[in-house]
């Protein structure tokens, strides 16, 4: 089995807010991240898939196809968007705050089952170069 990783980037705005809490609680727990006008990051996404090497093509997956899948399923939805306001999995009422952890989980759910010939192994999302979250599909 071979692991293969493809990178993509998106730049998005977000803020952290738990609708069940008071404004004071939100500010205490989330600090500056609770600013409702939002702030943003250049996110780097690394998607790792696992599979066998096709004996003819020598590929696990067609990287061009993987690039297109990431573009279609993730980048076109997240890039230059406000995650809280414009991306359905983080919309008001879902209770899902667009933290780096939840973004990794949401991207896993967007990609699961959509990569032909390989198994999704890991989704890693860098919020900055000193902070990243990973999800392996564990419940």
């Amino acid at each position: 089995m071979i692991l293969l990783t493809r990178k993509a980037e998106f730049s998005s705005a977000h803020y952290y807010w738990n609708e069940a809490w008071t404004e004071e609680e939100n500010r205490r727990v989330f600090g500056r991240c609770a600013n409702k006008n939002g702030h943003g990051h250049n996110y780097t996404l690394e998607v790792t898939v696992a599979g066998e090497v096709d004996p003819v093509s020598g590929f696990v997956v067609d990287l061009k196809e993987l690039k297109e899948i990431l573009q279609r399923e993730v980048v076109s939805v997240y890039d230059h968007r406000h995650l809280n306001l414009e991306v359905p999995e983080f919309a008001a009422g879902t209770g899902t705050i667009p933290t780096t952890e939840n973004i990794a989980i949401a991207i896993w759910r967007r990609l699961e089952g959509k990569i032909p010939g390989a198994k999704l192994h890991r989704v890693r999302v860098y919020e900055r170069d000193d902070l990243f979250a990973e999800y392996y599909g564990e419940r």
Partner: protein
Amino acid sequence: MAGLLQTERQSARPKAYLTRRYRLSASHRLHTDAYSAEQNRAVYGKCNNPHGHGHNYGIEVTLGGSVNAQTGMVCDLGELDVFARTHLLGRFDGMNLNTLDEFREVVPTTENFTREVYRVFQGFSGAKVVRIRIEETGNNSFEVGEEPGRG
């Protein structure tokens, strides 16, 4: 759509990993009294220079756990940073590792340094620290702990 998300939110407690990277600079000398001077030079080469040398270490701390349904987080990052400032940076940054109690009995190789940092972070109560990875230089890195995704 909203109904589906609602159900998922209530039933699933997904496990995720969060990695924070810190930087610190320290010096060390690789030398053990168990070897002769000649053996030390043979085994450790230029790292045995009696005056020591230093690195800008890159230290990655990986926490694993269920994502808290209220905060969307595995761990309060502020709490981790406070812990790291005291117990990682406060202890090792700008130091000569050979002069510290932790390395009185063991050689401060980055293998042993990584084990020590892993031990230190087991004292963090905010979330479980599952792995420490240290880059000594851009060419060398060392890991202690479990491989995420296998738990």
